[in-house]
Structure formats: C-alpha cells, structure tokens
C-alpha cells in the first residue's frame, strides 16, 4: 500500500514538473466560491433568515453532515466522530459557530471553500474523508442555505480530536496530488437531453448525497474508479451496486420500492442495516417524496456493470446440501421457509439482488456480527439479527451463504470458507464455540 502511495507522490512530482502546472492551478481553483461573503465571521453575523435555515436543514440532511460531524451521544455538529479509513482514523471537526474550537471565525466564503474545494480557513487541505469531491457539485443556493443553517446551530466548545494517520498520510500537502488525480473541480451541469427529475436525481446522488463515496469502488489511493456506483468493498462490508442492473443492482425494483427503502429503511425484500442503515436513519428518511423518486429514477437509468446471472449452483452440490441443512436449523425461523423474510423486519432472500452481489462480504459480516434494522419514523421496529460467529464455523457459514445465494431465484458464485476465516479475523468476531473451549 505504501509503495503505491509513493508512486502517487511521484506522479505528483512528475506532473508538477511538466506542463501540468496549469492543470494543478485549475484543480485548486476555488473562484466559484467567491460568490460568498468574505467579511463577516459566523459568530458575528446577524441572525440568519428562518426560511433559509429551514431549507439549509434539509440540505444538511441531503448531505448527511450529522453522520460524521455528530459523535454518537455527543453534541450536534461538534465533531469528534472517528472515521475508520484504510490509512488510519480521521476525526470529524466541530462545525458549530463557536469561535475557538468550531468555525465561529469563518466567513461564508471560508465555508464554501471547505465544503466544495476541500480547503480549510487557513488554506490547508482537507482529507477527502470529507467528500468535497462530491459536494463540489452543490449549487450556490443550497450552500448559502446550508451556511444559514450551520450558523443557526448552538455553539459548542469542543476541541477537535487529533487524527491517527501515520506517515506519510499525515502530510496534508500530499492531498494536492490526490486532488490532481481524483478531484474533478467542476460544478454540476444539467444533462440537457434528460428530464428535470433525472437531473435532480443525479444532482442529489453525485452532490450532497455523495452515494459514490461508498458505492463506487476505490483504487489503492482511495480515489474513485470508473465503475461508477457498481458496488464497493468497505471495511467489514460491501456497498452493493445501485445502478439499474437487474441482477445485482436495483433494476428489478420499482421506483416506489427504491424510494420506500430509502424512506423507511426497508421494502418488500430488503432491510437496511449497518452503514446504509445509518444513512437511512440520519439522511434519506427525511428526504421528500419527489427527491426520493428523482434519486430512484436516476439510479435505475444507469446501465451499470452489466453483471449477468451465472448458472445457479446445483442443489445437490455438497456445499448446497450442507447449507440447506444449516438454513433450516439456523435461519428459517426468521427468514422463512422459502427465503421470504418478513416485511419491514427480516431480509427476504428470494430473488434479492443484494444477496447475489459479486462480493459476499456483507453477508459474511452480518452472519458474523449480526445487525440491526434502521429505525425510522416510518418503521420504529428496529428488528435485529444475532451474531452466529459463536455458533457456526467458517465452513458452515460459507455453505449456508452459498445456499441462499443459489436458491429461490438467486444465482451467484459460491462463498469459500477461507474468505469467512479472513473476515472473522478482520471484523474481530468471536471464534466458534468449539474453538473457545
């Protein structure tokens, strides 16, 4: 991993040494933010317009700002949430309008630059854990409203927690190179051939929603690859493809089913949990109907990976037979006889694209660690799945997942036992009971 980073730095050096100096300038150009006021610090400004605050609160929800900037159980937007990255832990900052520890001395233009161009008030570069590469698409009006909302927050004095990034990742200047490689410094431009609803959907998905942050696969330096929204490995999980691909994306779901999933955290087969559960709880459940429909319309319009169903593994395959037995004794009580699940509570496996994802990491980590359904205003139940790490060994888990991935209309590659062993170590799941003795 480290050598790859140095290659990246080398790329920067080479780039800087050549004619790419102009590219570097364009990449760092934040003139677009000059529309914002640069005189009045947040803490000194007159009280913001209430209508703008309301609109800004909705923009904050679209951007899911609270997910990172509010620590669980902590003060709203006072930061301190540790974001686990492959490079170390990055702690979110205090964005309340408090002078000493928050952004009380910031002007609106400082704020615009941070959100859209990844630059702090002092000019230092932010780590792309802050998704400015998506937020750069947000328009001036939304950002202006968001600023009004942020200024309306209760100032909280809470000093930031230092990041735990090791060398060389602790060199913020290195982000110059990262930006040059991955940051597309361009505002959102509507696609003229597409209807307004589609464009609104794309604006939300690519901008404030920053869906690609999880759902687009990353390369070794954490930059987006070209497999846009086609599913990505996360730490201890997998963000599935969310394009219109019917096999592993959301193409087999209706617009309403996609919207319902985002609104209440579940639909006719899927139940959001884990990282997506948090996104639903903090963000998407609060989006209005037209915006949810716009997102669904846009996602379904994407052709995606083109992944197609392989031939299902034979029911007589030894792993399938073993899996069927485990399913019957361990899973059926909740997931039902034919993998139907229970609406709004328990994931249905039958003909479920999420189950067929090329990567089984989500399934493996859920079996190992359990999970809890998103709790939303539309569904307060919060049903949960227990951990089976203590009860099933790696081969059992591999077999039962192979079984559900190849039953009731599903077809997907078998899950290998070594993958489960690796995940068991990676997510710190407890050993199976036989091995605890």
């Amino acid at each position: 991993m480290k050598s790859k980073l140095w290659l990246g730095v080398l790329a920067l050096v080479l780039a800087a040494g050549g004619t790419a100096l102009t590219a570097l300038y364009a990449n760092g150009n934040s003139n677009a933010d000059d529309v914002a006021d640069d005189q009045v610090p947040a803490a000194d400004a007159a009280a913001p317009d209430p209508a703008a605050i309301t609109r800004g609160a909705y923009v904050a929800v679209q951007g899911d700002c609270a997910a990172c900037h509010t620590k669980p159980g902590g003060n709203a937007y006072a930061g301190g949430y540790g974001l686990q990255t492959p490079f170390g832990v990055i702690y979110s900052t205090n964005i309340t309008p408090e002078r000493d520890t928050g952004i009380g001395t910031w002007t609106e233009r400082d704020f615009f630059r941070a959100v859209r161009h990844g630059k702090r008030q002092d000019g230092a570069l932010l780590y792309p854990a802050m998704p400015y590469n998506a937020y750069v698409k947000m328009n001036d009006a939304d950002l202006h409203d968001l600023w009004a909302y942020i200024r309306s927050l209760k100032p909280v004095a809470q000093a930031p927690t230092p990041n735990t990034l090791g060398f060389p990742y602790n060199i913020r200047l290195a982000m110059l190179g990262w930006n040059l490689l991955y940051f597309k410094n361009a505002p959102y431009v509507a696609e003229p051939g597409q209807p307004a609803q589609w464009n609104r959907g794309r604006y939300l998905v690519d901008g404030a929603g920053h869906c690609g942050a999880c759902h687009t696969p990353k390369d070794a330096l954490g930059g987006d690859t070209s497999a846009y929204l086609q599913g990505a490995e996360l730490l201890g999980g997998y963000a599935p493809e969310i394009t219109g691909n019917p096999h592993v994306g959301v193409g087999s779901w209706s617009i309403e089913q996609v919207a319902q999933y985002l609104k209440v955290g579940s639909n006719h087969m899927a139940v959001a949990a884990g990282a997506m559960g948090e996104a639903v709880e903090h963000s998407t459940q609060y989006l209005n109907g037209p915006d949810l429909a716009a997102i669904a319309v846009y996602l379904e319009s994407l052709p995606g990976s083109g992944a197609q169903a392989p031939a299902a593994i034979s029911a007589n395959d030894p792993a399938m037979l073993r899996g069927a037995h485990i399913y019957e004794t361990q899973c059926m009580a909740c997931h039902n006889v034919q993998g139907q699940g229970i609406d709004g509570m328990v994931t249905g496996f039958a003909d479920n694209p999420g189950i067929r994802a090329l990567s089984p990491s989500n399934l493996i980590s859920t079996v190992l660690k359990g999970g809890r359904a998103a709790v939303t205003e539309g569904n307060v139940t919060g049903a949960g799945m227990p951990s089976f790490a203590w009860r099933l060994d790696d081969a059992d888990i591999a077999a039962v997942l192979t079984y559900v991935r190849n039953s009731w209309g599903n077809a997907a590659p078998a899950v290998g036992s070594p993958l489960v062993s690796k995940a068991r170590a990676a997510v710190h799941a407890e050993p199976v009971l036989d091995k605890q003795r």
Partner: protein
Amino acid sequence: MANVRPKVDAVIVGLGWCGSLMAEELTRAGLNVVAIERGPWVETATDFPPSVDTDELRWDTRRSLLLPPAIETTTFRNNRSQTALPTRDWSLNELGYNVGGSGTHWAGMAWRFLPFDFESYSYTLKRYGKQQLVDGLIVQDWGVTYEDLEPFYERFEKIAGVSGKAGVLNGQKIEGANIFEGNRKSEFPLPPLATTRLTDLFTEGSRTLGLHPFMVPAGQASQAYTNPLGVRMGPCTYCGYCLYYGCGNFSKSSPNACVVPALMQRSNFTVLTESAVLRANLAEDGKTATGVTYLDRNLQQWEQPADIVIFSAFQMQNVRLMLLSKIGKPYNPQTREGVVGRAYCFQTVSGANLFFEDEQLNQYIGAGALSAQVDDYNGDNFDHTGLGFIGGAGILVVARGARPIGNADAVPPGTPRWGSAWKKAYTHAFQNGTFIFGQGTSYSHVDSYLDLDPEYKDAHGDPLIRVTFDYNENDRRSAIFIENKSVEIGKAMGAKIVNGFDSAAVNYGPYLPASDHTIGGAVMGLDPHTSALNRYQQSWDVHNVFVLGASSFPNNAGYNPTSTIGALSLWTAKAILEQYLAKRGPLVEVPA
C-alpha cells in the same frame, strides 16, 4: 445528600406492560416522563434471539429472566400463628427483572375477564343471596365494569397483536368461539393460532360432554402484524419457547416487541435501567407525593422529582412500595381495618394428569398461549345453587411446547425414577402425557394479607413483604369441583390414565405447583374503607399517586391477568390525561 434529577411531569416505577402503556399514553400527550426500571435493558436480537433462546436449562430451569430471590424476595406463612420465613429459591412468585418486566417472559394468554368478575358481589347477591358467601370471604365490586373497560381491552389487544376469535361480537354469539365472554365491539386484530393434535383432542372430547371449547386468545402473532404504534411483529413459529423466555421472533406480545420501540423514539421519554426505586417521597402534609427516591446501579441514591408518581411494578412490589412510602392505611387483621395489604389473594389450580395409549402429540410444537379451553364452569357461567361457593375456573389444555428437562417426572404413577424403565416410560409419556387444568377464580379472605416483615430485609435494608395466605373454604370447594370436571373431560378425550390433582387440597406453599397469578393488596374500589385506590387506580390518600397492576384486583378471575392490567392501565391513563391534568386532586370524592 441525595443527587436530584430534573423534575418531570411523571415518574413511572417499573417498565413492564403497565408502565410502558402508561408511558406511551403520557408521552404521546406531550408529558415528560422518566421510567425507572430495576432490571437491565434487554434486546431481542442480542439477548434472546432464536439462536440462543432454545435453552431450557438457562431460561426455564434457571429462570434467567426473573428477579433473583437473593435481590428481593418475600417471606411467607400460612397464618398469623406461624413465623414467616423467606422464600429463597425460585417459587410461584415470578417477578420480572428487565425492561419489559414480566411481560417479557409471560406465556401470552390474553384474556378479558368476564363482566361477572368486576361485579362479583352485586351479581352474587342478586342471583343467590348473601348466604352463598363463605365466612370471612372478601367479595366487593371493583368500581369499574366490563363495559367501562371494553374499549381499553380492545386497544390493548391491538397494541399487543392478540390472536383469537370473537365469541360474542356486538351481541351475536358465535359458535366455536367463547360464547361466555363479555360482548366485544370488534374482532381480534389477528386470527387464532393454528390448532394442534392436543387441542383438537380437547375440543372433540369436551364437545361430547356438551361443553363449548374454543382456542384461547393468544399474545402470539398468528401472522405478520403492524400495531397502532407502528411497531411490527413477526409471525409465530410455534417453537414453544414462550413462558420464561423472551421471544426471539418478535412474535410474542410484550412491552419489548410492542411498545418500547415506539417509546424510545420519543425525546420526552427517558428510561433509567438497573435502578431500584426505594419509595415515593411525600410532601409535608402527606397529601401529595413529590417524586421518588431510587438507587442507581452503583448504589448511588437519587431523587427523581415528579408531579405524578406511577407505581407499575409487580403486584407485591406495588404493595411494598405503598407500605414503605406510607401511602394509605396498612391493613390490621385483628381489627380488620386498613386497606394496604388487605384483600390479597391468589389462584386455585386443579385438574387432571392424562396419559394416552398411542398418540403422537408432538408437543415440541407449541406456543405459550396455544391452548383450548372451556368456560362452561368459569365465573358465574353455571348455576351455583347448593354448591357452597362462587366462581369456578376456565379449564384448558396447553400446547405450550415440550420441556425435555421440566417434564422428566411427568410419567405415570408407579414409574421408577431412573434407569431403563424410566427412560422407556418417559419416551412414551413425551408423546402421550399431558394435563388439563382449571385456573380458578379466587377471592380473598380476612385472614389473607400482605404486610412488611418484622425481621427479614432486602439487600438495601428495607423490610421484605410478608405473605400470610392459605386457601379459603371457597377456594377449596371450587377447586374440587373443577378437578372433577377436568377428570370428566380427560376421560372424554380418551386418555388411558386420568389422575385428578388439586393444589388447594393442601396448605398453600410457594414451591407447590399452582399458577403465578398473585393479586390484590392495594385494590381499587368504591369505598376508601375497603380499597386503597379509587376506580381510576388513584390512591384515595395521595392523589398524585396511581398504582397499576394486579395489585388493584379485589378478586381473581378464572383467567390470566395480563390483558386486564393492560386495559386498566389505559383506562387510568385516559383519566389522568382527560381529568387529572385539569384538576389535580382526587378524581372521586371521598364518600361522606
């Protein structure tokens, strides 16, 4: 000096069915509510999912969801001439010890009491005259009628997701269901559970006797369900792990599955777990409570000030809290004056053990309330002339799920207690043995009561509750009557061996098999000389204290108590919201 929390509109002591239903009503109306629960938070997916639930040794034999007697127990004696001793082992007193209270581990039988049960005194006087009552029996009307409670029963059944079939719907009797029940204004929210071979045998057998069998209303969701609070329940899988277990499938009606998820989304609701309330604190004039004192998990003492104090702990704990808080006049069995501790009673259980010749009962398929019952001998559903008692029992068979450990001695009389003969007999009995039993109506007696033990104390140094109880003559007569009827039904079911049993034939003891439906001690009523609470479960003496639970029942019905404590809690919540908040004082004037 105690730590003091910010004052709230209402503090709720105990977060079981009563407390959670009250909290739901009060917080929905906008009040700030703090609930204080002695036990820990429990979570279906992590504490008792299907992968860990199916463990009879842990949950049933070792009672892992109950309040351990080492923390708080009761002392017991049969009469005043004896010295009470503490009940140190698991006993009939099955107190909850977690968020959800006893509503987490109950079996799920979701009955409405009969109209007779609320007005036993008036009904009996009218039909038989006073001579029907045995000497010393305490029989008094509740001050609330079935008609009053009907809408609240309906609300409870919808929140709890009860499965059943109406027997009397808007005046129409429906054959095949319970034609003796009080009139309902609506059908159950869910259809009845599926029957089993065992319930079918009961149904067929009792029909040949001219009786009216039906499937018991069950707090197990027969289908996926969303309740009026927006909480979802999963369909029951008939795994049989209900009584003493939490339900891992979100199927059993419980505060955890049905109410708490909605409560936890409300910013005006707080629950303090692992915190034991010691007493309510009274204002100087003794006419109102100022809040409660409790110990947190680190044994730090706290005060929670509140405008309204709700006692919604277990029946015996409610009475104990009344006594420790000095609310109401304690009962004195010599003068027969005083009300707190008075009218304590229990429930007779009698019936018959059955062994069939060649059945396949497959009793591992079951649910806590998967039962068939007849009510022909319950309440005042039959003529008691010349019988010398009032009341009776619902007689039922329970397909509750087999207990490989617990049933190990359920073998025909004369079977060796170990060895290959026992194994053979148990293997046979596992598929062929069962029992039918009556849960009796019970009435208290002037000699049965609760008070504070003069000697034994709990871990915090407060006196334990002392139970002085034995079955009275009315109990004994009705229990024998029900035993005989159970034997008749057992024979009609075709059992090869039918042996009657009767818990009331011997002195009461907390370790002898019976029901766990202990009731009364702080009863509601119309007269402050014979009741601790008025018809709204409001203390006659301290008007901002309301006491919810079976402690309010002046008498026991031939049923399980849960739906009635649920309905009464909702009835009281309505009175608080619609009457008490506007006029902070007694909701019923003390009669002159």
